[in-house]
């Protein structure tokens, strides 16, 4: 059976920066997995875009727990994806999965798990509704433009189905 789950690119933040982009993502895989260990200058929200699309093509439904209660929310027709919390003192763990990212026949659905041990855990499903195209870049920012701090890591993997 063909081995897969290939590392595509990885990056560790050397100095505070506002955003990161994985570009020139090869279309030869079936699924993408993005693993993050982010920390920011202050508490905020991680946001994401595909292919530099700034139109209102994003929506999500999420489930979260803050240590006191569980809740669910939804937003539609956004210009970005909601990924989850980022913290100013505690490194978080984020896993973003996009199945069938390179097909040109469907909208793209992503599944996100985000965890910050001192504040929250969440699961999110997101939809990108741009006219179907392969994802070739992923940009990660924060909602308020807060910088990612030194030591934040971003790693992209590709999985290829037989």
């Amino acid at each position: 059976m063909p081995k897969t789950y290939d590392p595509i690119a990885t990056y560790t933040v050397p100095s505070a920066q506002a955003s990161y982009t994985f570009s020139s993502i090869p279309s030869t895989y079936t699924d993408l997995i993005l693993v993050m260990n982010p920390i920011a200058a202050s508490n905020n929200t991680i946001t994401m875009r595909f292919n530099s699309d700034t139109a209102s093509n994003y929506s999500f439904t999420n489930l979260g727990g803050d240590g006191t209660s569980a809740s669910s929310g939804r937003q539609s027709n956004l210009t970005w994806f909601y990924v989850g919390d980022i913290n100013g003192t505690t490194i978080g763990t984020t896993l973003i999965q996009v199945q069938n990212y390179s097909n040109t026949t469907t909208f793209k659905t992503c599944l996100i798990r985000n965890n910050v041990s001192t504040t929250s855990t969440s699961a999110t499903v997101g939809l990108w509704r741009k006219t179907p195209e392969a994802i070739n870049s992923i940009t990660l920012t924060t909602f308020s433009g807060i910088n990612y701090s030194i030591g934040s890591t971003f790693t992209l993997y590709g999985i290829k189905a037989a």
Partner: protein
Amino acid sequence: MLNTISAILNNGVSAIGDYESISTVTVGAGGQASITFSSIPSTYTHLQIRWIARSTNTSFQQIAGYGRFNSDSGSNYSWHQLYGDGASAGASAGATQTNMLLLQEASTLNNPSNLSFGSGVIDILDYSNTNKYKTVRSLTGSDINGAGTVALRSGLWQSTVAINAISFTESSNFAQYTQFALYGVK
């Protein structure tokens, strides 16, 4: 300041780990009532299924899908879920079921051009171990820009037989472009 990282083109670089692609099913035009992986080799430790799916159902926006192992239709399945529907978080469970709740699909209803699909990742741990029941976990969700559900699910198949087949069904048919991919982890 935008920091751009050029991806290292991976063409020609082989994976060196123990995660292997076993089989893939893609639904063609006309749809398909069920999806089955059979003759699953027992040489791995865990299985993972990665999928996107849309239902041909025209009555409901969100469709649940189910799994069975080794064609077992007995009341040998149980499951729990924690889910969010955009308005509130909820939990539910099923015991002594004839199948396992695993999938969350989009349907044809309120799905312009039928381009929105549900997605998920299913992990089956120690699937070939004949000394224990089989444990399953699933992360799944579907969002259609105004409706959707995301769920964390766990399941139990009360059988010590090694899993050699997995089948998925739902209330209608799986629509064209639905795809399920089976992977083995050593």
